Protein backbone atom coordinates (compact mmCIF):
# COMPACT_ATOMS: atom_id res chain seq x y z
CA UNK A 1 0.00 0.00 0.00
CA UNK A 2 2.81 2.37 0.78
CA UNK A 3 4.19 2.11 -2.74
CA UNK A 4 0.80 3.07 -4.17
CA UNK A 5 0.86 6.18 -1.99
CA UNK A 6 4.42 6.97 -3.05
CA UNK A 7 3.62 6.70 -6.77
CA UNK A 8 0.50 8.86 -6.45
CA UNK A 9 2.33 11.54 -4.46
CA UNK A 10 5.14 11.51 -7.02
CA UNK A 11 2.65 12.01 -9.87
CA UNK A 12 0.99 14.83 -7.94
CA UNK A 13 4.22 16.69 -7.28
CA UNK A 14 5.51 16.23 -10.81
CA UNK A 15 2.27 17.59 -12.25
CA UNK A 16 2.35 20.51 -9.81
CA UNK A 17 5.85 21.40 -10.94
CA UNK A 18 4.67 21.06 -14.54
CA UNK A 19 1.95 23.65 -13.85
CA UNK A 20 4.60 26.17 -12.96
CA UNK A 21 7.29 25.38 -15.49
CA UNK A 22 5.56 24.25 -18.68
CA UNK A 23 5.83 27.01 -21.25
CA UNK A 24 2.37 26.61 -22.73
CA UNK A 25 -0.83 27.65 -21.00
CA UNK A 26 -3.06 24.80 -22.23
CA UNK A 27 -0.46 22.34 -20.98
CA UNK A 28 -0.49 24.03 -17.58
CA UNK A 29 -4.27 23.68 -17.32
CA UNK A 30 -4.05 20.02 -18.28
CA UNK A 31 -1.38 19.47 -15.65
CA UNK A 32 -3.58 21.06 -13.01
CA UNK A 33 -6.29 18.56 -13.99
CA UNK A 34 -3.77 15.81 -13.30
CA UNK A 35 -3.04 17.33 -9.88
CA UNK A 36 -6.71 17.12 -8.93
CA UNK A 37 -6.80 13.54 -10.26
CA UNK A 38 -4.08 12.44 -7.87
CA UNK A 39 -5.73 14.40 -5.06
CA UNK A 40 -8.90 12.39 -5.62
CA UNK A 41 -7.01 9.12 -5.29
CA UNK A 42 -5.23 10.39 -2.16
CA UNK A 43 -8.50 11.42 -0.53
CA UNK A 44 -9.88 7.97 -1.27
CA UNK A 45 -6.76 6.37 0.25
CA UNK A 46 -7.07 8.31 3.51
CA UNK A 47 -10.68 7.09 3.69
CA UNK A 48 -12.50 10.32 3.12
CA UNK A 49 -14.93 9.33 0.33
CA UNK A 50 -17.04 12.47 0.69
CA UNK A 51 -14.10 14.73 0.11
CA UNK A 52 -12.87 12.49 -2.68
CA UNK A 53 -16.21 12.78 -4.45
CA UNK A 54 -16.23 16.56 -4.06
CA UNK A 55 -12.74 16.81 -5.42
CA UNK A 56 -13.67 14.51 -8.31
CA UNK A 57 -16.72 16.56 -9.23
CA UNK A 58 -15.04 19.93 -8.91
CA UNK A 59 -11.48 19.17 -9.94
CA UNK A 60 -12.28 16.98 -12.90
CA UNK A 61 -15.46 18.61 -14.18
CA UNK A 62 -16.09 22.13 -13.04
CA UNK A 63 -12.55 23.45 -12.67
CA UNK A 64 -11.51 22.13 -16.07
CA UNK A 65 -14.63 23.72 -17.55
CA UNK A 66 -13.99 27.12 -15.96
CA UNK A 67 -10.32 27.13 -16.91
CA UNK A 68 -11.16 26.02 -20.45
CA UNK A 69 -13.56 28.94 -20.81
CA UNK A 70 -10.83 31.19 -19.49
CA UNK A 71 -8.32 29.83 -21.99
CA UNK A 72 -10.73 30.43 -24.83
CA UNK A 73 -11.62 33.95 -23.86
CA UNK A 74 -8.09 35.03 -22.98
CA UNK A 75 -6.76 34.01 -26.36
CA UNK A 76 -4.57 31.11 -25.32
CA UNK A 77 -6.29 28.64 -27.60
CA UNK A 78 -3.71 28.82 -30.34
CA UNK A 79 -2.28 25.34 -30.55
CA UNK A 80 1.41 25.19 -31.08
CA UNK A 81 2.96 23.39 -33.94
CA UNK A 82 6.12 21.35 -33.53
CA UNK A 83 8.51 23.98 -34.86
CA UNK A 84 7.04 26.63 -32.60
CA UNK A 85 7.71 24.39 -29.64
CA UNK A 86 11.25 23.82 -30.74
CA UNK A 87 11.77 27.54 -31.09
CA UNK A 88 10.86 27.84 -27.42
CA UNK A 89 7.86 30.13 -27.46
CA UNK A 90 6.68 30.89 -23.95
CA UNK A 91 3.42 32.40 -22.76
CA UNK A 92 4.66 34.26 -19.76
Amino acid sequence: MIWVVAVVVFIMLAAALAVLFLPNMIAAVVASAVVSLSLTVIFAIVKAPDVAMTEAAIGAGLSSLILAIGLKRLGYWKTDSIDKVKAGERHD
Partner: protein
Amino acid sequence: MNSFFTIEGILYFGAISLSIIGLFGLLVSKNLFRMLLSLVLFEAGANLVLVLSGFIRNGIAPIFLDGNSGAVMNDPVPQALVLTAIVIGVGVQALALSLIFRVKKHYGSMDMRTIRSKLEREIATQAGVTPPGSNEAPAPVKLVKGEAHE
Protein backbone atom coordinates in the same frame (compact mmCIF):
# COMPACT_ATOMS: atom_id res chain seq x y z
CA MET B 1 12.07 12.11 11.15
CA ASN B 2 12.56 8.68 12.66
CA SER B 3 9.46 7.33 10.94
CA PHE B 4 9.37 9.27 7.73
CA PHE B 5 8.78 6.41 5.36
CA THR B 6 5.28 5.61 6.50
CA ILE B 7 2.01 6.39 4.75
CA GLU B 8 1.40 9.43 6.93
CA GLY B 9 4.94 10.72 6.46
CA ILE B 10 4.75 10.54 2.68
CA LEU B 11 1.30 12.13 2.63
CA TYR B 12 2.35 15.03 4.88
CA PHE B 13 5.44 15.54 2.72
CA GLY B 14 3.28 15.65 -0.41
CA ALA B 15 0.75 18.03 1.10
CA ILE B 16 3.36 20.48 2.38
CA SER B 17 5.29 20.33 -0.88
CA LEU B 18 2.10 21.04 -2.83
CA SER B 19 1.37 24.12 -0.72
CA ILE B 20 4.95 25.29 -1.08
CA ILE B 21 4.90 24.86 -4.85
CA GLY B 22 1.67 26.85 -5.04
CA LEU B 23 3.05 29.64 -2.86
CA PHE B 24 6.27 29.77 -4.88
CA GLY B 25 4.32 30.08 -8.13
CA LEU B 26 2.14 32.77 -6.60
CA LEU B 27 5.19 34.79 -5.64
CA VAL B 28 7.34 34.30 -8.70
CA SER B 29 5.13 34.00 -11.79
CA LYS B 30 4.55 37.04 -13.97
CA ASN B 31 1.40 35.95 -15.74
CA LEU B 32 -1.97 36.50 -14.11
CA PHE B 33 -3.43 33.23 -15.37
CA ARG B 34 -0.50 31.26 -14.02
CA MET B 35 -0.99 33.00 -10.71
CA LEU B 36 -4.57 31.74 -10.70
CA LEU B 37 -3.38 28.19 -11.33
CA SER B 38 -0.87 28.52 -8.48
CA LEU B 39 -3.66 29.71 -6.20
CA VAL B 40 -5.61 26.55 -7.03
CA LEU B 41 -2.57 24.43 -6.12
CA PHE B 42 -2.13 26.28 -2.84
CA GLU B 43 -5.76 25.69 -1.89
CA ALA B 44 -5.48 22.01 -2.74
CA GLY B 45 -2.42 21.59 -0.54
CA ALA B 46 -4.10 23.31 2.40
CA ASN B 47 -7.17 21.09 2.01
CA LEU B 48 -4.98 18.00 1.96
CA VAL B 49 -3.25 19.02 5.20
CA LEU B 50 -6.63 19.56 6.84
CA VAL B 51 -7.95 16.16 5.82
CA LEU B 52 -4.74 14.45 6.93
CA SER B 53 -5.15 15.92 10.39
CA GLY B 54 -8.14 13.64 10.90
CA PHE B 55 -6.53 10.51 9.51
CA ILE B 56 -6.31 7.50 11.79
CA ARG B 57 -4.20 4.47 11.01
CA ASN B 58 -6.47 1.44 10.40
CA GLY B 59 -9.55 3.62 10.62
CA ILE B 60 -12.49 3.33 8.27
CA ALA B 61 -14.61 5.91 6.49
CA PRO B 62 -17.09 7.66 8.82
CA ILE B 63 -20.18 6.02 7.37
CA PHE B 64 -22.25 3.45 9.24
CA LEU B 65 -22.77 0.30 7.24
CA ASP B 66 -24.02 -3.12 8.27
CA GLY B 67 -20.82 -4.78 9.31
CA ASN B 68 -18.73 -2.04 10.85
CA SER B 69 -20.34 -1.33 14.18
CA GLY B 70 -17.22 -1.69 16.28
CA ALA B 71 -14.49 -0.33 14.05
CA VAL B 72 -12.53 2.88 14.59
CA MET B 73 -13.66 5.71 12.34
CA ASN B 74 -11.84 8.71 10.94
CA ASP B 75 -12.57 12.15 12.28
CA PRO B 76 -15.63 13.52 10.42
CA VAL B 77 -15.19 17.18 11.37
CA PRO B 78 -12.18 18.06 9.14
CA GLN B 79 -13.83 16.23 6.26
CA ALA B 80 -16.95 18.36 6.62
CA LEU B 81 -14.86 21.52 6.78
CA VAL B 82 -12.89 20.61 3.67
CA LEU B 83 -16.11 19.68 1.86
CA THR B 84 -17.23 23.27 2.33
CA ALA B 85 -13.83 24.74 1.53
CA ILE B 86 -13.52 23.02 -1.84
CA VAL B 87 -16.87 24.38 -3.04
CA ILE B 88 -15.95 27.89 -1.91
CA GLY B 89 -12.60 27.50 -3.66
CA VAL B 90 -14.24 27.04 -7.01
CA GLY B 91 -16.33 30.18 -6.42
CA VAL B 92 -13.15 32.12 -5.69
CA GLN B 93 -11.58 30.69 -8.83
CA ALA B 94 -14.46 31.82 -11.05
CA LEU B 95 -14.46 35.28 -9.46
CA ALA B 96 -10.72 35.66 -10.03
CA LEU B 97 -11.14 34.54 -13.61
CA SER B 98 -13.81 37.16 -14.28
CA LEU B 99 -11.56 39.84 -12.80
CA ILE B 100 -8.76 38.62 -15.07
CA PHE B 101 -11.12 39.06 -18.03
CA ARG B 102 -11.67 42.68 -17.05
CA VAL B 103 -7.95 43.31 -16.62
CA LYS B 104 -7.19 41.79 -20.00
CA LYS B 105 -9.87 43.91 -21.62
CA HIS B 106 -8.71 47.12 -20.00
CA TYR B 107 -4.94 46.80 -20.21
CA GLY B 108 -4.66 44.47 -23.17
CA SER B 109 -2.03 42.32 -21.52
CA MET B 110 -1.62 39.65 -18.88
CA ASP B 111 1.93 40.45 -17.84
CA MET B 112 2.23 41.95 -14.39
CA ARG B 113 5.11 44.25 -15.37
CA THR B 114 3.24 45.72 -18.31
CA ILE B 115 0.11 46.16 -16.24
CA ARG B 116 2.07 47.87 -13.51
CA SER B 117 3.79 50.32 -15.80
CA LYS B 118 0.51 51.17 -17.52
CA LEU B 119 -1.19 51.58 -14.17
CA GLU B 120 1.48 53.95 -12.91
CA ARG B 121 1.27 55.97 -16.06
CA GLU B 122 -2.51 56.18 -15.75
CA ILE B 123 -2.31 57.33 -12.16
CA ALA B 124 0.32 59.92 -13.02
CA THR B 125 -1.76 61.20 -15.91
CA GLN B 126 -4.82 61.50 -13.73
CA ALA B 127 -2.91 63.32 -11.03
CA GLY B 128 -1.13 65.58 -13.48
CA VAL B 129 2.39 64.71 -12.33
CA THR B 130 5.27 63.04 -14.07
CA PRO B 131 5.33 59.28 -13.75
CA PRO B 132 7.75 57.80 -11.24
CA GLY B 133 11.12 56.68 -12.37
CA SER B 134 11.74 59.42 -14.93
CA ASN B 135 13.04 62.94 -14.58
CA GLU B 136 11.13 64.42 -17.47
CA ALA B 137 7.66 64.61 -18.86
CA PRO B 138 6.13 61.22 -19.69
CA ALA B 139 7.32 59.90 -22.95
CA PRO B 140 6.39 56.40 -24.07
CA VAL B 141 9.80 55.66 -25.47
CA LYS B 142 11.43 56.27 -22.11
CA LEU B 143 8.98 53.99 -20.40
CA VAL B 144 9.60 51.14 -22.76
CA LYS B 145 13.33 51.52 -22.21
CA GLY B 146 13.00 51.50 -18.45
CA GLU B 147 10.80 48.46 -18.63
CA ALA B 148 13.31 46.60 -20.72
CA HIS B 149 16.03 47.57 -18.31
CA GLU B 150 14.34 45.84 -15.43
